[in-house]
């Protein structure tokens, strides 16, 4: 298994004959209390890799354009002896630079072995996109839709298991009752019960910003993957990202926006820019919430969410 610390094209990992493990997916349920930390996500995956007994043969650290704290925590992992590769998204969104990064990644992984898997992963993502549309229509619960999207980063470490989950969701027949359509912007929440709590307030999350990137970006060749992933909004300039968000808010007929921010994450600094454009500029009701260590939703955060729901009204 190859550990990944943020979005690394699963197309490339699977085509290289490797099973990816997105370490972030282990964090929300983790009980680790890391000694040195800024961001809990990176500190906890660092501890999990160094002391957690995971059976990893290597680690790919996304060290540029997305998560800045990952660089030092990745180096600490490397110092512990695990082969580590640093993968950087170009800030300017250049597909050429990204393709060079992908070539280095492929070399780290030992070369492409099963090219057909590019297409297999792409087809699975297409099905996830169809489920995303159903979620917007209120036919898929937000918590289920979120979990599917967020686990697309590593596809559960098994394309068969991922396809089975897709199949189960495709077969389910659900109607979600809700009052308002919500966009959840920012990094995925460190609180595992956020989507379910919002649902209990009648707030249906129809857009999970970062997880949607996981199902949206794909390609069937290295250059195609480079072109697509060069548009990874989280890795580039905030204005490009906001332009993308704005289209999604319209397309999904979103009523209000919640921006989740992780303590000590550089993306927190983007909040005033996002608030200015989306709230003051476009008039979307806007709530910022923050998380630090993994836990169930604290009362203080619940209070903010309930007050936000009261504000949106019936």
């Amino acid at each position, binding site marked *: 298994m190859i550990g990944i610390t943020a979005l690394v094209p699963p197309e490339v990992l699977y085509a290289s004959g490797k099973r990816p493990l997105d370490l972030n997916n282990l964090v929300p349920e983790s009980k680790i209390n890391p000694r040195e930390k800024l961001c809990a996500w990176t500190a906890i995956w660092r501890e999990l890799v160094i002391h957690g007994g995971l059976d990893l043969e290597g680690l790919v650290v996304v060290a540029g354009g997305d998560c800045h704290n990952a660089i030092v925590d990745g180096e600490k992992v490397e110092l512990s002896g695990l082969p580590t590769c640093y993968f950087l998204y170009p800030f300017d969104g250049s597909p050429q630079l990204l393709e060079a990064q992908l070539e280095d990644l492929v070399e780290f992984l030992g070369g492409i072995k099963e090219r057909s898997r590019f297409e297999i992963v792409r087809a699975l993502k297409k099905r996830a996109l169809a489920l995303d549309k159903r979620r917007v229509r209120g036919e898929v619960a937000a918590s289920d839709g979120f979990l599917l999207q967020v686990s697309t980063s590593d596809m559960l470490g098994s394309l068969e298991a991922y396809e089975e989950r897709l199949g189960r969701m495709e077969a389910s027949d659900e109607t979600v009752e809700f009052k308002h359509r919500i966009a959840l912007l920012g990094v995925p929440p460190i609180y595992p019960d956020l989507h379910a709590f919002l649902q209990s307030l009648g707030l249906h999350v129809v857009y999970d910003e970062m997880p949607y990137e996981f199902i949206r970006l794909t390609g069937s060749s290295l250059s195609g993957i480079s072109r697509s992933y060069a548009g990874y909004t989280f890795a580039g300039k905030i204005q490009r990202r906001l332009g993308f968000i704005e289209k999604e808010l319209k397309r999904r007929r979103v009523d209000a926006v919640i921006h989740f921010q992780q303590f000590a994450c550089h993306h927190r600094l983007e909040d005033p820019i996002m608030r200015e454009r989306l*709230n003051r500029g476009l008039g979307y009701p*806007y*709530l*910022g919430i*923050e998380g*630090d260590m993994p836990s169930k939703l604290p009362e*203080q955060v619940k*209070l*903010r969410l309930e007050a936000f729901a*009261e504000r949106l009204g019936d």
Partner: protein
Amino acid sequence: MEIMGLDVGSRAAKSALLVGRKWSWGVADIMAWRDLLSSGAEVVATGYFRKKVPHTLVVTEITAAIHGVRHFIRGDVDAIVDIGAQDTKVIDLATGEFMMNDKCSAGTGAFLEFLAGYFGLGMEELQEYHFRAGRTAEINNTCAVFAQSEVVSRLVEGYTREEVIKGIHHAFARRIGQLIPQDADRVAFIGGVVKNRGVIDAFEKELGIRALVPREPQVVNAVGALEYYMARRGGPP
């Protein structure tokens, strides 16, 4: 029928009771919230423990504060600042947006309580010291822990207790001021902490705003919870 607004916060419980046209209110320690109950009255609960007390209806402190301020203050209000023991909430009434500080004690009542304890004073004495100060000691840190070491440094430098307390009030106002909308002019201050007029003086001087303090700042949310209930029902009980 009697209706009670009950605000059970992290430190104190506050009640507002309306019988006919007559309002009455009470304040009790958090552990003694039951003493405030009136037999037979329906309860509209707010505050952190709102769901833990018997209630007919619950409402968050944010919504309760908006209704409560309207009850006490006539005319336009641009923003509400609710300073509690454990957190501070700022509501922008022009946009309906709200911000909360609950991660850092520097902008909450807990910080002033620490300061009072450090000088061996009661919270109610801080205002007296504030207005007796000749100068304002400069306290720059926005972190309560670092501000504490600054307090010691200023005292060593020769500032008086009065001047340090005034300096802390100003640092407190600057800290919370970061959450207040920049274009706000008329700002309502509520919560037990704002009974300290030294804090209000610091806010007005630091931010150049007009501070509006209701005559019972601590019970505004309890009154607001009750007003919220009546607004939903379309009139008094």
